[in-house]
């Protein structure tokens, strides 16, 4: 018996490991000179987070939302935008829109995005006048009044609308149909922002996703194919006639607006190239070729800081990085943030 107790004690002692915890940077009362980053988190982990990166001391706090509001952001943060004095966060699996005060990050309102007992799963947000537009995976674009923060109407579009952008007084919505795989959608809905009605659907390619608007008002949309034999492809939509005018032949994974260019990343690559939206040449120019990035998960250019920010998801289940580059594509620094960083807002 003594022998057994001795062995048990020995095991407990050996098994006990002293742990150290890194100090967490403090969050400011008022937000200035920093970056607010949305970390998507992982499905069913309730770990979507906002990170605050302070320019002054380069510190990072990955629990910004929790510390400000004493609760979590929710499950799978999908979009982060600032409009006027408010920040809007679309939290997809939790089916909420979080609205924060842009000056201090405190919650103003959480809007539950439910249609009866069916979660609408909000994806992306865009703004026009006093309205916010939210793509909902149940096949609608919800219209918010940005003053009283209520939903004023629902506009039916295609299947599983993903992204949206405003151009030429119209709203362009990419209908992915991703939940109908392999019978995905392949259209972009055009909504007249005066009548708030869908006026056209433009066929682009299977599984449309990211959609942006260049300085000339042209729309660029990526159709993501089937992730196998049908590759992702970039398409151009001309917004006066609302027609697809070009299918580009280069390989593409994701894109971001960069001055009068698009930043283009290729599938399974960390090389970033530029596409000139003025000349629209198929010949892409190398921009970042040697980035300290494991898995490129997104890009963002800020005209405020004149920097390019890349999101590194590492292996999608480990905490990621925001990697900063100069406007000429030179690496400057990286910040260790949360799980799957994907969007950011720059504060002067």
């Amino acid at each position, binding site marked *: 018996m003594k022998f057994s107790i001795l062995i048990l004690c020995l095991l407990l002692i050996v098994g006990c490991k002293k742990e150290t915890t890194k100090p967490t940077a403090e969050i400011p009362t008022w937000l200035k000179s920093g970056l607010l980053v949305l970390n998507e988190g992982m499905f069913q982990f309730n770990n979507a987070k906002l990170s605050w990166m302070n320019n002054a001391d380069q510190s990072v706090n990955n629990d910004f939302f929790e510390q400000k509001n004493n609760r979590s952001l929710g499950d799978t943060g999908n979009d982060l935008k600032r409009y006027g004095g408010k920040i809007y966060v679309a939290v997809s699996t*939790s089916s909420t829109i979080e609205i924060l005060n842009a000056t201090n990050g405190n919650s103003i309102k959480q809007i539950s995005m*439910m249609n009866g007992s069916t979660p609408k799963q909000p994806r992306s947000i865009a703004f026009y006048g006093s309205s916010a537009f939210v793509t909902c995976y149940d096949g609608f674009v919800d219209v918010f009044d940005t003053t009283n923060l209520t939903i004023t109407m629902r506009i039916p579009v295609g299947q599983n609308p993903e992204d949206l952008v405003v151009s030429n007084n119209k709203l362009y919505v990419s209908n992915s149909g991703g939940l109908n795989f392999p019978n995905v959608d392949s259209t972009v809905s055009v909504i007249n922002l005066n009548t708030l009605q869908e006026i056209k659907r433009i066929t682009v390619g299977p599984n449309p996703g990211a959609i942006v608007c260049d300085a000339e008002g042209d729309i660029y949309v990526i159709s993501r194919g089937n992730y196998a034999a049908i590759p992702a492809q970039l398409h151009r939509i001309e917004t006066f006639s609302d027609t697809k005018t070009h299918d580009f032949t280069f390989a593409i994974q994701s894109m971001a607006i960069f001055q009068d260019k698009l930043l283009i990343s290729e599938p399974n690559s960390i090389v970033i190239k530029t596409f000139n939206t003025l000349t629209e040449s198929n010949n892409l120019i190398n921009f970042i070729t040697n980035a300290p990035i494991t898995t490129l998960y997104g890009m963002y250019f800020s005209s405020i800081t004149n920097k390019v920010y890349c999101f590194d998801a590492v*292996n999608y289940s480990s905490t990621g990085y925001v990697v900063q580059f100069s406007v000429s594509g030179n690496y400057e620094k990286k910040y260790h943030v949360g799980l799957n960083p994907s969007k950011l807002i720059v504060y002067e």
Partner: protein
Amino acid sequence: MLKTILFLGAFTLTFISFSQYKEIEEVILIGKSVDSTRIYRLDEKRILAKNACDVGDLMRLFPGVQVTSYGGIGGLKTANFRSLGAGQTSVVFDYQAQSTTQSGATDLGLIPADFISEIAVIQQASTDILLPIKSKLSGTILAIQTKHQAATYKKNGLVGMQTGSFGLIEGFAFGQKRWEKLKISISGKSRFYNGAFPFTYNNGATQVHTTRKNNQVIDHYGMFSCSYTPAKNHLLSLGISGNSYDKQLPGAIIFYNEHAKQYLSGNELDFQLRHLYTGKKIQLKSQLNHQINQLTYTDSNYLNAAGFLKNEFHAQQTDGELQLKLTLTNKTSCLIGSSVRNEKLVAATLSLLPNRTVSESMLGITTNYFGVLNGQVGLLAYTANFSDKTAAKTYILPSVDWLIKRKQIAFGVAFRQSLRLPTFSELYYQQIGNNQLLPEKGSQFSLRMLHTYQRKRMIFQTIIQPFFAHVTNKINAIPSKNLFIWSIQNIGKTRAFGTEFSEQMNSRLGKGIIGMAVNYTFQYCVDITDPASPTYNNLISYSPLHSGGIELNYNWNSWRVFSQFNYQGKRYALNESIPANELAAFNTIDIGGSYRFEKNNRSFNIRMTVNNLTNKFNSYINFFVLPGININMKLNYEI
């Protein structure tokens, strides 16, 4: 933790001190002999005393076993031994290996605990002719034996019912009759569980009190078996068992969105036909099994064009095997055997209709010349057909176990290699399946020390098993294109070392018998896939460093009381060991008692348990919550 243990001890002793007026009937001694195959076992008395709803609840009593429980009653429960992964554990139910064609692991939550006479963890059983070859080549065998196999009475019967918190109602019956050459057994159980239990979880610094929704379970289980002795030395056995279930699936708690509307229904049917010849020096077993599983998953909130998702799967497994055991001398025997298994799965969500044929052969030997030496060499070959392609692979799997005993101490050493074939879901599931997957390879090395100590009215038995386990080609689902597009790859490598500790004690105390069982597992299981990865050398998800339990019981006359303390150490929900992924350690305390009344060889038994006495809200898997304090009461009438 220490406070809880002291409280538990004090509570139990107080209970005992008020109960010492009964006469002692018998002293139950734990086994003095060393079983070289069953490294841990639970007998019928301990199983019955727990009032467990299913086998998954009983598995936490074993050292080295991590039970992955996705919720309470009705939730998926799988057993993972020494961090090898649930797919490396072969569940054998009355000598039939359970099919894992589709999901790769047996759901222990579907196996009722009411008719079970023994559960054992077996690591090496080279010349045990009744165990299937498939299982003998797996990482670990979890052998479940029901009353159908074990009972030897001329006539035997059991009728019972159980009721409990959150709308639990179940009824069960078992009957058995033996004639000179024939034995027939039949058992059945039906269960209804509302599952609307209250619970609390932390959302940041905010505590949320709510009630579990969409958690109802209805299931039915039945088994018929018959054995016939047509001639001396020959035994023919037939077994037919099946179950049917409808479960609501509440899923993980999703903050601000508790609207899951998912359902799972299934039907399973198993046939088994076995012939066993037992001669003086020869034993010959031939066995044929056929298993059919039908599974339907629906999600009525799925946002596709149809407005719902419905996936149906139909799996079939047919296998036959032949094993011959020769007794070479009075100390040495050998076994040679071969099996062939065909697996099929039909589902609209699979990119192809897979069909796989696996042949497994083995040569085993057991000799008692110097200690007990069990050795075997297995040969596993499989051919998988899909579309116009055929893949074929062959593997050799050696393992050895040597145990020597000197007086009250036994010492053993074991080495084992095993394979886990990729499941059909991993191979062919649309978008994410990968038909190039190779089997997972597991290796285990363990030492075993047993010490039995007897003094006056006490007996102690200590088992200590340090182990090292290594898995390569680990099959993991990883996001490939983006967070929503995953694929399954052979990318993982894990390394684990640790120690299992088990202490059992029985002693006469007052007019009764007190028993104690302590189990403790220390394991350090880390990801060693890629030195450049941030998760390199981090603990793998849901693998606590410390886990264990203490069981105390006291028996006198017709009364029995017990308390059970369980502890799960801190663990991480993802492979990166950072505070954001940390799940706090938790412990639960269950207490219970039973009274047995006998008259005219018939007994009436009433049991009551209070589970999670301290009402702590916890979960094995992040956000798959388990109920707080709950009560079960069971009545049995045995004839």
